[in-house]
């Protein structure tokens, strides 16, 4: 390496170098390396683009990625129309496997996070409400917060990290190993065969997980209520039951299903967009999680406003 640098420098300074004094092996190595140098023209030109050019590239890129997303959404909708007309082809065994992966197998983590979330809410509420002697309203606080929003939200974020990333990685890998190509040249639509069962599975499992997460959150709140505030089981129970309305519950579950669709779609979209290498699979998984969390939070905001306007 040192020799190469010296030689290059000499050439730039137009100094003639004499290699005769070098050992045979090294001279041959140098000759090999010089043949390679001729390919310098093949190097990509890496001029740093100007600020304006960068702004332009970023905006056209985001425009294209938005149009790609809409395109994908349209394709998936068409596939669903096919499903309704009973003409979509996918394997039921695959669907059941995915249902198992994103439903029952997610229970432990949902239990843990939801329980702790309920406990934290109760704890924060308890400290404040105790100042007014209104400890009993901790039950209301936890119940309403968990059922209306936090249950669905936390489930959504867990599933984005767990299942969304898994979808993107699986489809991405299938793309890299040409499994998706093999499906296409058999006349299977990857959308029907791979994306559809995933969207269906999450749509089925999200409401259930969401309901379960609500329950766990309330139990977490109750643990704090009973342990720290010396409320009795029955009081806490009645206070909670009175606080929850059926509309709030369904509102929360509706949000859960929406998040489920968003997670499945962004996971599959990023997987299908995946390039041809292992690092591309990693990028696809990362970007799937980022996309789904952004979409979930946005959807949560939008739905909250919509629910407020229609008075739910």
């Amino acid at each position, binding site marked *: 390496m040192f020799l190469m640098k010296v030689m290059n420098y000499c050439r730039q300074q137009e100094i003639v170098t004499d290699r005769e004094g070098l050992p045979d092996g090294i001279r041959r190595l140098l000759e090999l390396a010089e043949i390679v140098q001729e390919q310098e023209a093949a190097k990509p030109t890496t001029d740093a683009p100007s600020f304006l050019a960068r702004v332009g590239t970023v905006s056209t890129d985001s425009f294209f990625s938005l149009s790609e997303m809409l395109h994908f959404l349209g394709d998936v909708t068409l596939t669903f129309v096919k499903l309704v007309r009973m003409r979509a082809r996918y394997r039921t065994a695959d669907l059941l496997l995915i249902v198992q992966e994103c439903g029952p197998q997610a229970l432990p983590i949902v239990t843990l996070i939801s329980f702790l979330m309920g406990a934290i809410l109760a704890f924060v509420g308890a400290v404040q409400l105790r100042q007014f002697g209104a400890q009993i309203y901790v039950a209301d606080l936890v119940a309403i917060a968990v059922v209306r929003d936090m249950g669905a939200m936390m489930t959504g974020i867990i599933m984005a990290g767990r299942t969304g990333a898994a979808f993107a990685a699986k489809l991405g890998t299938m793309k890299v*190993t*040409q499994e998706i*190509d*093999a*499906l296409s*040249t*058999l*006349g299977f*639509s990857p959308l029907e065969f791979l994306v559809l069962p995933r969207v269906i599975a999450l749509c089925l499992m999200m409401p259930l997980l969401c309901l379960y997460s609500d329950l766990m959150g309330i139990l977490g709140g109750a643990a704090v209520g009973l342990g720290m505030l010396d409320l009795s089981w029955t009081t806490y129970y009645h206070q909670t039951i009175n606080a929850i309305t059926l509309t709030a519950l369904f509102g929360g579950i509706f949000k859960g299903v929406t998040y489920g669709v968003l997670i499945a779609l962004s996971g599959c979209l990023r997987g299908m967009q995946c390039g041809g290498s292992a690092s591309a699979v990693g990028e696809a998984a990362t970007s799937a999680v980022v996309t789904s969390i952004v979409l979930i939070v946005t959807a949560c905001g939008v739905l909250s406003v919509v629910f407020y306007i229609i008075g739910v």
Partner: protein
Amino acid sequence: MNSESSNEIAAEAQITVRNLTLGYGSVVLMRDLNFTVKRGDVFIIMGGSGCGKSTLLRNMIGLIEPAEGEVFYEKANFTRSNAEERRSVYRRIGVLYQSGGLWSSMTLAENVALPLEEYTELDPAEIREIATFKLALVGLNGFEDYYPSEISGGMRKRLGLARAIALDPEVLFFDEPSAGLDPINSRRLDDLILALRDSLGTTVVAVTHELPSIFAIGNNSIFLDAESKTAIASGDPKELLAYCENPKVREFLTRGEGRPGE
């Protein structure tokens, strides 16, 4: 190479490629490709690494939409066809992918059975029987319930072939069939390809740069050149070796020994 002006498609043509331009975005890899693959041919797509051989294959089977030009299967325009018409073509072709493209979540038997489940009305027992038979054809009997990750690279290649021939296709596409195989297995694969061609009358289109395979199986070919971005020679590889004057083709077919001045 068939002339560009003629719009007639020869009766014995299995695949006709007309004015095909390959490219990604604004980058053009190859332009003005015109050739015909006749029924029963073993057609080799050759050329240096990275010149667009695999891309040409992917264009021919519709995995990439051509930038320009058309691909015909017999007399049907494949490039301009809708999903239903494409399915009828996909029913008649089989593809062996470079990296196998085997479905890793299914067993060997299920891999071979999926095309049959999709396109035939056979009951599961019959499908299983055919799948076992096809696996036996490529010497994989007894491995039906293994998963692709549990078998060796050479076996995966053969599994890919078993799946490609599951539907007794009229045309078989091979993307680098012998890549990653030792010389003996590579030779066996060549023999297998020829045996299939002879017994089923299958047309074969193969992308390869393995010289022994090219001469052993090919009876027609096209030579892609990355510099001029088009095909610079076509015909039987053995005749190309004997008569072709083009220095690039000679260099390739003789492993660089025909290079002028060496």
